């Protein structure tokens, strides 16, 4: 699902809040998994920031992240993600919107993550969504 972060030029102007939220989610999950794999499980972002010598990690992954979504924070999350898991696979579809259209009807996690990245935009039709599943 990290391929969702490889078409920022098309997607960030429209979907920065949702993509940043998912980048933070994936980075946090990868850090937890990495700590477990090292035999030192840790679910404290502060402790993980100390372990990695990365003081800004606490702010980026704070559970009460209340800052205005920024492309800089998004890039910070994605670059840290790449350091952990290597280069992200290229998008198969070229944009977030194309991913949703082309993956429609499949039951994969990629579609669910792409769908959630659309975010909670305000508008006259926002009281309605077709959601196949919700990933927690």
């Amino acid at each position, binding site marked *: 699902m990290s391929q969702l972060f490889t078409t920022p030029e098309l997607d960030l102007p429209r979907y920065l809040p949702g993509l940043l939220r998912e980048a933070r989610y994936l980075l946090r999950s990868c850090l937890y998994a990495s700590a477990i794999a090292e035999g030192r499980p840790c679910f404290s972002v502060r402790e993980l920031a100390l372990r990695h010598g990365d003081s800004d990690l606490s702010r980026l992954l704070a559970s009460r992240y209340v800052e205005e979504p920024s492309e800089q924070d998004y890039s910070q999350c994605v670059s840290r993600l790449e350091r952990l898991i290597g280069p992200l696979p290229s998008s198969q579809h070229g944009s977030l*919107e194309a991913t949703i*259209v082309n993956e429609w009807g499949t039951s994969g996690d990629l579609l669910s993550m792409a769908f959630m990245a659309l975010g909670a935009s305000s*508008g006259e*039709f926002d009281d*309605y969504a077709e959601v196949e599943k919700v990933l927690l």
Partner: protein
Amino acid sequence: MTSQVAFVGDVHGCLPALRGILRAIDERDVSHTVFLGDYINKGSDSYEVLAEVLPLAACGAATLLTGNHEQAMVSALDGRGLAPFLKMGGAAAIRSYIGGNVGPDVLTEFRASVPLSHLEALRSMPETFETEDVIAAHSSGAMNDSRYRVSAHVDVGPEPVISSHGAQIDTGCSSASGRLTALFWPSLLVVQVDNTGARV
């Protein structure tokens, strides 16, 4: 037999069901058919469904009311954001119009694939159909009236909800075990087909 009006619920991109219900209506003495909107999304035949019903409206045999899915499609095509349309399952309609996978610029491809006749029809669909004793709209919220009220929009399960003051006839066409319902006025008789178009 007195000539009747047929009201048809949400089709949601299911061409076999649409054809099945049209066959059932043809067997009766029906002077006019009113489709209650939501022709697109969910099923794989959004384009084909609109292509099938638009000529019925053009020759005066049918009235095509607008549904929230059509309104969202027009809003997306007008550039007010693709996200709300995608959230309500617009990918199904986009795939139907484009005929398969899309490239990165979805909106440009989608716009290019929608015939002008479809766009004009979508823009001009009325919200209500009214006679002296019956009023119909996609959503019951659009009607505050003492006449008999026919609506769709909310999936009420496999059977329509019919009372002395109104009827709700969205029976989940295109969803698993869904049906497409036609309600005949003033008899209040009902005909249903499944997603294959077979009579239920």
